[in-house]
């Protein structure tokens, strides 16, 4: 179900058709219902936020999108066709990249190698060629290194490219993780709390990078975030979840004035 209409954002960016659509997703763990009958879409080129109080099911939703959880009910439509149940690595190969709430970098490797792992899905040389470091394998290493260096330049982490990741401070680790996800040249980029635990300056940097990624590469971004100021400034449309249900969906302004959302966040007198 390819919808080509799209819409124009407040700052004048043209948003395209539907890239991914969640249809009546329900996710149960035994008796616990983490997500209950939620539908929403993500359009090409937009920044889509998922917000909600703690335990609302936001991360579970992201895990459904990235294929880590298979929904108990409902369908995921991607690029105009229904996505069959598949392993997370297969979903990643379809162009879905993500970062993690608790940094999940490969601590024993350098920054450069970490970002290079993001290119794995683009490298196809056989074991023989790799063992000889010859032909396709060597060309691929050099070609992908060039791509990786573009990302490293873009995120301004040139100075640390050969540092082991384990020695880096928190804010930089978050940025390296973003670099790894970006290196895959994803169609859709999922960010799980990209600002968690950052100070104001680091948040500003990260916001700038997210906007630049969207602007320069045209990458579609779906993000979860707790910092309301950041979410309202960055995103084009927002989904609000509470107790596993969708209670709001729309532009930041619409969501801000939605009575259900205000009740969920501020509480309501009974």
């Amino acid at each position, binding site marked *: 179900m390819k919808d080509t209409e799209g819409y124009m954002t407040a700052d004048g960016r043209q948003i395209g058709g539907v890239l991914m659509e969640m249809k009546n997703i329900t996710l149960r763990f035994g008796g616990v219902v983490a997500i209950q009958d939620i539908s929403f879409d993500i359009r090409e080129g937009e920044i889509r936020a998922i917000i909600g109080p703690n335990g609302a099911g936001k991360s579970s939703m992201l895990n459904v999108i*990235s*294929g*880590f959880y298979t929904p108990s009910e409902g369908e995921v439509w991607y690029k105009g066709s229904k996505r069959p149940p598949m*392993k*997370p*690595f297969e979903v*990643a*190969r379809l162009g879905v*990249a*993500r970062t*993690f709430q608790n940094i*999940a*970098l*490969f*601590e*024993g*490797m350098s920054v450069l*190698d970490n970002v*290079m*792992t*993001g290119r*794995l*899905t683009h*490298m196809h*040389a056989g*074991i023989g060629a*790799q*063992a*000889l*470091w010859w032909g396709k*394998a*060597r060309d*691929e*290493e*050099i070609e992908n*290194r*060039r791509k990786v*260096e573009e990302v490293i330049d873009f995120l301004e982490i040139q100075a640390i490219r050969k540092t082991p990741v384990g020695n880096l401070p928190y804010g930089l680790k978050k940025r390296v993780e973003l670099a*790894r*996800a970006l290196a*895959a040249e994803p169609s859709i980029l999922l960010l799980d709390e990209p600002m968690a635990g950052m100070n104001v300056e680091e948040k500003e940097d990260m916001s700038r990078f997210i906007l630049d990624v969207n602007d320069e590469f045209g990458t579609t971004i779906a993000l979860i975030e707790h910092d309301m100021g950041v979410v309202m400034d960055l995103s084009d449309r927002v989904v609000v979840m509470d107790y596993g249900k969708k209670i709001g969906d729309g532009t930041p302004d619409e969501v801000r004035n939605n009575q259900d959302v205000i009740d969920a966040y501020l509480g309501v007198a009974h």
Partner: protein
Amino acid sequence: MLYRTAGQFKTSYKTDQALFPIRQDAILLAIILVFVWVIFPLTASEFTFQAILIPVLIFALASMGLNILTGFAGQLSLGTGAFMGVGAYACYKMITLMPWMNPIVAILLSGVFSAGIGVVFGIPSLRIKGFYLAIATLAAQFFLVWLFEKWAWLYNYNSSGAIQVPNLEMFGTYISGPQAASVTEYYVVLFVVTLLTMLCINLTRGNLGRTWKATRDMDIAAELIGINLMKSKLTAFAISSYIVGVAGALYVFMWKGAAEPNVFDIPLSFQVLFIAIIGGLGSIMGNFLGAILIVGLPVVLNLLPNLLGIPIDSAMVEHLNIMIVGSLIIFFLIIEPHGLARLWALIREKLIIWPFPH
């Protein structure tokens, strides 16, 4: 001063990704290669070949195989000895069934059998990890050694139950068996070890190496960025077991000359594991450093008291050896978990800036 890297600029990714981006490393390796290929064979005595040179190379190779699996791909294994045995028995069967076969080809092919069996015993790694996987590979260790004992076809129904290496000829000289000269055996081992080390270095610094290290460091993240964990783990088992199998074939054909099943029992697995740990997990060079230490230590301990004129009996030497190796392992686990290879890396970093403090 000698290790100054200033002035060595890289202008392309190709040169930056070269094997030795620093010129001094290449020179150092060239010196080492000249020693092992030319100077050692010319000067070494029969004793040095049999007690140090050949076993160091063979154990370094076995440890490299284990290191691919444990150090790079993060899958613990205690079955190294048995997989060496698979390589040795496969080589023995090939040589006796097809005597026309080139011995070096037979040795290189014997790894294929251990790779296949390694993959089969690697299947549990898809579901379990860490110590539990180690126990699963222990099952391989016991089962395979039992098989070597009970399946008489493997040792051609010998009454002794052991495999005996026949005299093997290549280009008119004996390269294996009772009549082969030590220097020939040394060159065969050196050729195989050099070849496999080169391939391993390339594999571990390329895409497959990154796949393995990602699997080792955080498997969930690895899967979510597009790594097929099953493929990653099973290729690690296959390549690791291949190398270990070739090391096993060399162990019997180029060094021991004969082997009973219990040679491949668990002490051999542990010896290789100690070399990998002391040398440094996740390093190729560490295997050689570890092998030099573990193989060389007993030899030095045997010779040293004689040179110093201290009377000491051989049982005492053996006990001393066990005590020293044991304390070395504890020392390394506490002080430097990344082993000798890491120590060398630290020394190298210091040398690069020496004589300035930073």
